[in-house]
């Protein structure tokens, strides 16, 4: 325990440097801004700002990027409450009761409880990240290639189970992502694979380019197509601070939401997206009068909002301890780390303790900053939300173009992102979800490396994956999750969670 406090002390000494404080503030502010604006997500923003971080020191760069990520979770809820559209995918559930509260003139209380709940969740999760960092890192050092491979298989299966709609399609998307990741030079033999003779593909497809195309541009395409209807709350925002009765009602939902969100967030395969749904369902089940939900129940805001913040922060755990990015934002973090010569994984904690603990400490500072900057700025966000989409999308386009160009100062990257934008549009139209594909792509290279290593060690026998107990356990867990998702009754339940 004393070790933990010593480490946190080191972390705070790094995070409290004036430069890192400023970067943390900028990250949180930018994150909130893009969280508020629907149609601009943290993925596109981090990709745009990636080149800017080249010149910073690694700790500062990661502190800022992390701030953008969890800041966006804060901002997303503001839009969900005030406009009834989720600013971010994770704040979908907040629209249900949050916007109802706003209609009843209690927008301020909804925003206030969302901020307080998120702050609580952020604080607890910071401690969880700090406490789990050591043990998980020790565990990761015991992992051989076979265990790593099986762990990633489990992550991908989990992503498939979490995807909406057809399992078959989600599985196909994961495989397509893995296939895309094999494009480029083969690391072992040096052969160019499926590059079609294009120089731009020799180093493989840049993740930022793919993500920007499939998430950034495709999102604009979809939004321009559907005519916009925004229902910005016009009336009073009302008082920001919840009263005693509100606090009493929200206290337990916040605690439960934090635990649910943090638990799901730790899992590889982007469990964090499920957090708010799980928390909402849980609160509704536990409520004495479930009919209040959907009509402005404060528990329906407090729980999911805490869960989404906890999940966002907990998703750093697989990245920092195992070196496995659980979602697209974390994959961009990998990019930011490798640019500075840091390979994410268990060795980060021993080789760069200042970076690891500095980032953990900055999360808590960032959460405190968000609490302070978010509430007074509500008026600004409301005005910003009145900017029509016809002006917003050309602006987003330009920012995205400048961002992609700046990553490698290469116009081919920009053209390639446009191509993937088209691909993303077709995928959405055909009912495919792009998220599993992106995760497949993210894990593809590492999986291939580990698969090859494992098979070299076992002299070509696949039995190695089931003979080693840890690997077998992970694969069984993956199989169980898949089996559960196929069972019709649970399948229906899963659809309910998503449609609620």
């Amino acid at each position, binding site marked *: 325990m004393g070790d933990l406090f010593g480490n946190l002390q080191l972390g705070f000494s790094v995070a409290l440097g004036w430069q890192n404080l400023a970067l943390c503030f900028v990250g949180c502010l930018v994150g909130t801004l893009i969280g508020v604006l629907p149609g601009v997500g943290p993925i596109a923003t981090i990709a745009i700002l990636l*080149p*800017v971080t080249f*010149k910073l020191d690694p700790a500062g760069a990661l502190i800022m990027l992390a701030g953008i990520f969890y800041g966006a979770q804060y901002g997303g809820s503001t839009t969900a409450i005030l406009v009834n559209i989720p600013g971010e995918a994770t704040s979908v559930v907040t629209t249900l009761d949050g916007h109802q509260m706003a209609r009843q003139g209690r927008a301020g209380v909804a925003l206030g409880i969302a901020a307080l709940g998120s702050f609580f969740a952020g604080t607890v999760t910071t401690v969880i990240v700090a406490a789990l960092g050591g043990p998980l890192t020790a565990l990761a050092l015991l992992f051989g290639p076979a265990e790593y491979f099986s762990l990633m298989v489990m992550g991908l299966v989990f992503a498939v189970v979490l995807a909406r709609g*057809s399992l*078959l*399609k989600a*599985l*196909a998307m994961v*495989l*397509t992502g*893995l*296939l895309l990741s*094999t494009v480029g030079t*083969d690391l*072992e*033999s040096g*052969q160019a*694979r*499926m590059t*079609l003779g294009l120089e731009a593909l020799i180093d493989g497809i840049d993740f930022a380019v793919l993500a920007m195309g499939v998430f950034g*541009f495709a999102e*604009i*395409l979809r939004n*321009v*197509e559907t005519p916009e209807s925004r229902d910005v709350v016009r009336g009073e925002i009302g008082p920001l601070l919840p009263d005693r009765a509100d606090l009493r009602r929200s206290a337990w939902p916040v605690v439960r939401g934090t635990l649910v969100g943090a638990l799901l967030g730790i899992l590889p395969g982007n469990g964090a997206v499920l957090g708010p749904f799980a928390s909402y369902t849980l609160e509704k089940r536990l409520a004495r009068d479930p009919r209040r939900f959907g009509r402005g129940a404060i528990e329906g805001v407090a729980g999911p909002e805490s869960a989404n913040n906890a999940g966002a922060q907990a998703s750093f755990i697989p990245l920092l301890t195992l070196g496995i990015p659980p979602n697209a934002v974390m994959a961009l973090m990998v990019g930011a780390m490798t640019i500075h010569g840091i390979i994410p994984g268990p060795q980060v904690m021993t080789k760069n303790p200042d970076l690891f603990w500095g980032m953990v400490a900055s999360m808590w500072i960032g959460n405190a900053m968000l609490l302070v900057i978010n509430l007074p700025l509500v008026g600004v966000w409301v005005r910003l939300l009145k900017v029509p*989409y*016809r*002006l917003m*999308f*050309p*602006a987003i*386009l*330009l*920012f*995205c*173009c*400048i961002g992609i*160009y*700046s990553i490698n*100062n290469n*116009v*081919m990257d*920009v*053209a390639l992102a*446009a191509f993937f*934008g*088209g691909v993303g*549009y*077709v995928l959405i*139209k*055909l*009912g*495919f979800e792009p998220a599993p594909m992106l995760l497949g792509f993210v894990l593809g290279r590492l999986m291939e490396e580990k698969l*090859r290593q494992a*098979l*070299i060690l*076992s002299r*070509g*026998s*696949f039995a190695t994956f089931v003979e080693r107990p840890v690997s077998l356990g992970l694969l069984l867990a993956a199989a169980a999750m898949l089996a559960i998702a196929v069972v019709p009754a649970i399948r229906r339940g899963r659809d309910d969670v998503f449609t609620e």
Partner: protein
Amino acid sequence: MTPAEGGSGDEPGAPLSDRASRDVAAGLVLVAVALFALWAGADLPLGTLSAMGAGMLPRSLAVLVGLFGVAIAASGWLSAGEGLGRWSLRGPFFILGSVVVFAATVRSLGLAFAGPLSMLVGCLASHETRWGEAALFSVALTAFCIVLFRSLLGLPIPIAWFL
């Protein structure tokens, strides 16, 4: 809905109009992707399981993607489901076009010109665009981007060909 209508969904060979044409198309697209990958990686050596060649994984993945494609297309053919839905051409054409315009002009003309140009091409995608407003906004935003990205953040992006 009458019972007769409700029952038709699960019978094989549903009426053509009821078939999940979206899934059929989705499956065929995957098959095409798989065939393309097999063709593009045809020259790569497979190797053996204990010493995998560069082509082993791409080819196995391509085959799997193809099989999933066949399965999705077949299930779409045999059951009722969503149709292809409405596809618009104007949005994708001008928005992706605007990105291509940016790629084509940022080196030769510089951001000062590529910015407004690509934004205005993008504006063609929406029928809500008001042109006076869009022109002014594109120039103002480009100026803002030049100050932000070039002057403040120091990214080496070309501003104009004569600078």
